[in-house]
């Protein structure tokens, strides 16, 4: 180390004193190299997630210290259902959340059985990555084409025991995927209260899909990964089709805030988006996906073996009925 000469020390002291005087005049909130103007208004943030692979950007931003980098003290809280997540955001228990793209729209319009609560969605977390699963006994008889399912639906209806299908939330994407797929096969999914339906359509939280199929409560469902892959791993069902085969590159999950929070905390929202941006760039690199699957597979997040999550994250689709696909846009 080079020692400072007396004159150098004097210059150094003069410089640092002047700098200290300048710093003293800065507004509160100066953090490291960030100007006070960039500092978030709210630093303690609780983020909601549902146990799904597409919550990964939020989890990685938390686990890799990216929220911290932008001045946010983050806590990630796993919700039991989409309705619980929506209510927690509406009441302010959580400040931002992983959400189905249709939910903030429904909340803003006052639809879906909850009071009207305007929400904003400044960040799209992912595209694609959902699927329609059918029970194992239909493997080899039905694949991607729902017209092959119709005879089974018709017979069950005539017998007075209609087939049951599940989705995750009425104004959500999975409801749209399963309704569209069934209708494409001439199977009426019913109106908002089920009138006119050829089948029963029920709402089940994502992480409970596999357990409900195991106890024979349903014949098929639409949900995000890894639960379609888990059904195959558990040998109780197979993937009929992926949602990207229904709508290529469709929008899926978002990071939502209430409009009230975003209006009061624009710098906080900006900080969150910067962290999600970095997490998304990290996750987008194929070489990081093994590590990513290990992190999000943990008990406090998805609680699923990483090897079950990883395959479809890498675009390697094994449908469970003999079909395989290398999907370039998993």
């Amino acid at each position: 180390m080079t020692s400072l000469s007396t004159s150098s020390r004097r210059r150094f002291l003069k410089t640092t004193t002047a700098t200290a005087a300048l710093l003293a005049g800065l507004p509160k909130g100066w953090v490291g190299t960030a100007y006070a103007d960039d500092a978030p208004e709210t630093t303690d943030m609780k983020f909601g997630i549902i146990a799904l692979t597409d919550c990964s950007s939020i989890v990685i931003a938390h686990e890799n210290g990216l929220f911290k980098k932008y001045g946010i003290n983050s806590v990630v809280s796993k919700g039991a259902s989409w309705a619980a997540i929506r209510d927690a955001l509406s009441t302010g228990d959580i400040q931002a959340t992983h959400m189905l793209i249709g939910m903030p729209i429904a909340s803003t319009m006052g639809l879906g059985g909850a009071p009207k609560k305007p929400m904003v969605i400044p960040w799209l977390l992912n595209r694609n990555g959902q699927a329609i699963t059918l029970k194992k006994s239909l493997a080899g008889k039905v694949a991607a084409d729902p017209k092959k399912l119709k005879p089974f639906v018709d017979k069950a209806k005539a017998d007075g025991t209609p087939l049951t299908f599940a989705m995750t939330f009425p104004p959500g994407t999975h409801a749209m995927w399963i309704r569209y797929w069934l209708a494409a096969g001439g199977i009426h999914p019913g109106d908002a209260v089920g009138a006119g339906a050829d089948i029963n359509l029920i709402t089940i939280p994502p992480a409970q899909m596999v357990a409900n199929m195991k106890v024979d409560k349903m014949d098929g469902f639409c949900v995000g990964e890894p639960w379609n892959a888990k059904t195959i791993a558990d040998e109780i069902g197979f993937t009929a089709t992926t949602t990207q085969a229904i709508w290529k590159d469709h929008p899926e999950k978002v990071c939502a805030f209430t409009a009230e929070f975003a209006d009061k905390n624009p710098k906080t929202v900006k900080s969150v988006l910067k962290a999600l941006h970095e997490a998304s760039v990290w996750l987008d690199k194929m070489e990081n996906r093994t590590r990513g699957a290990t992190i999000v597979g943990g008990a406090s997040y998805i609680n699923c073996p990483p090897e079950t999550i990883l395959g479809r994250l890498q675009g390697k689709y094994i449908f469970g009925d003999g079909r395989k696909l290398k999907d370039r846009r998993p």
Partner: protein
Amino acid sequence: MKEIGYKHGGPSDKPEKLFDGSVFDPKADMEAYAASFAVKSIKG
């Protein structure tokens, strides 16, 4: 709009084969395509 890690190929109006084997052609008759759906209304 900027999308991370995804190179968008720009708009395409090429025919596309869908999950059930049917073909959607953006240049074809849209009315006929819509009328071809087995279920046309979710009204009960």
